[in-house]
C-alpha cells in the first residue's frame, strides 16, 4: 500500500509532506481543524508538479465540454510534431478506451483513465497514470480531462497550464456561463474555425467574454481539421518545452 496517498498501488514515489499541527484544546470538546478540503488533492498535485519539474516535462491539462475537439487537436498535434517532440498522453473519460485507441494509432504512448461515475480527473489518478510512461523520453505530457466545464476547474493536477478548448459550434457565451473554468485556464483554443462561414458564432464577442472572466487569458483561433492556426499553437508549445528544459 502506498503510505502517502493510502491507495493499494505500491512502488510510486511521493515527495514528503509535513504533518499538520492541530490545536486539540483539551479542556474543550471543540477541536479546531482549519484544513482545506482539497488539501489531499493539492498535496498530491504538488508531488506531481515536483516530479514533472525534475523530469523537465511541460504538462498541459486540456479541459472543455464534450465534443469540442480535444482528442482531434491532440491527434493532429501528435501527427505534426510527434517526430521531433516526445509526447505522452493521459486520457480521462467516464467510460471506454475510445480516445486512447485514437491516440495509440498515432504511435504515442497513452494511458486511459476511466473515472466511472467521476466527473473529473484528480491529482491522485494522474500521479498513478504517469507511472505507465518512461518520463525521461517525454517532453510534453498532455492530460485530456473528462469533458465537463464545471468540476475539472477545481482540481489541480500539477500541470503547467489548463488549456480550455471551445469550439465555434458551441455558444460564444460559454465563458460567461462557466466562468470558473475560464478563470482557471490561462490558455483558450477556439477550435473548428473552418466552420465559421456556416455558423452565427461571433469570435470577437467570445474573446471579449473570455477576457471579462480572465483578462490575462491567451487565445488561439484554430481548426485542427483544416490546420489553419495550428502553427501559432505549435510555436507556443515549443516555447513552453524550451522554458521547462531550462528550469
Amino acid at each position: 500500500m502506498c503510505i502517502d496517498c493510502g491507495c493499494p498501488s505500491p512502488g510510486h514515489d511521493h515527495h514528503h509532506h509535513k504533518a499538520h499541527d492541530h490545536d486539540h484544546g483539551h479542556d474543550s470538546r471543540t477541536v479546531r481543524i482549519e484544513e482545506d478540503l482539497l488539501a489531499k488533492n493539492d498535496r498530491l498535485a504538488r508531488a506531481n508538479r515536483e516530479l514533472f519539474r525534475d523530469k523537465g516535462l511541460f504538462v498541459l491539462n486540456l479541459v472543455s465540454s464534450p465534443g469540442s475537439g480535444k482528442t482531434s487537436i491532440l491527434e493532429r498535434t501528435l501527427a505534426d510534431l510527434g517526430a521531433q517532440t516526445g509526447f505522452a498522453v493521459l486520457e480521462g473519460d467516464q467510460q471506454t478506451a475510445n480516445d486512447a485507441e485514437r491516440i495509440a494509432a498515432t504511435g504515442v504512448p497513452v494511458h486511459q483513465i476511466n473515472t466511472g461515475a467521476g466527473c473529473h480527473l484528480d491529482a491522485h489518478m494522474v500521479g498513478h497514470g504517469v507511472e505507465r510512461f518512461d518520463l525521461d523520453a517525454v517532453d510534453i505530457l498532455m492530460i485530456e480531462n473528462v469533458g465537463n466545464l464545471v468540476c475539472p476547474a477545481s482540481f489541480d493536477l500539477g500541470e503547467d497550464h489548463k488549456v480550455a478548448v471551445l469550439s465555434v459550434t458551441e455558444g460564444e457565451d460559454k465563458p460567461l456561463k462557466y466562468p470558473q473554468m475560464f478563470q482557471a485556464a490561462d490558455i483558450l483554443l477556439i477550435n473548428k474555425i473552418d466552420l465559421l462561414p456556416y455558423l452565427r458564432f461571433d469570435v470577437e464577442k467570445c474573446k471579449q467574454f473570455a477576457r471579462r472572466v480572465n483578462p490575462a487569458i491567451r487565445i488561439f483561433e484554430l481548426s485542427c481539421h483544416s490546420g489553419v492556426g495550428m502553427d501559432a499553437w505549435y510555436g507556443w508549445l515549443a516555447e513552453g518545452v524550451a522554458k521547462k528544459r531550462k528550469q
Partner: protein
Amino acid sequence: MHEVGITQSIVEIAERTARSGGAKRVLSVTVEIGALSGVIPEAVEFCFEACSKGTFLENARLIIERVPGMGRCPNCAGETEIDAYSCECPACGAFGLETLQGKELRVKEMEID
C-alpha cells in the same frame, strides 16, 4: 457532482482528527464553503448522511458556514460582493475583479465526544 468527493474529504479529515484526538465520535462538524468555491452547499448536505455512515461522524450535525464572494475592482479599487468571476464593478463597469474572498473550502472545527 464533485460534491461527493468533497463530502468524503470532510468525513476523512474529521475522522482522522477525531481518532488522533482520542475521540469516540464526532457530534458536529463545521465547514466553510465560499460562494466562488464551485461547491454547492445543498449538495454537500445531501451527500453527508451517506458519506458519514459507519464512520465517527455517523449522526453528526453538519454545520455549513457560507462565505460570500468579495472582489476588488482593478480600475477604481472599489470592493464589492460578487457571486461569479464575470461580475462587473457596480461603480465603474470594469471587469476582471480580483477575488478577495469566497474560494474557501475548509473544515473549520468539530465537536467531539
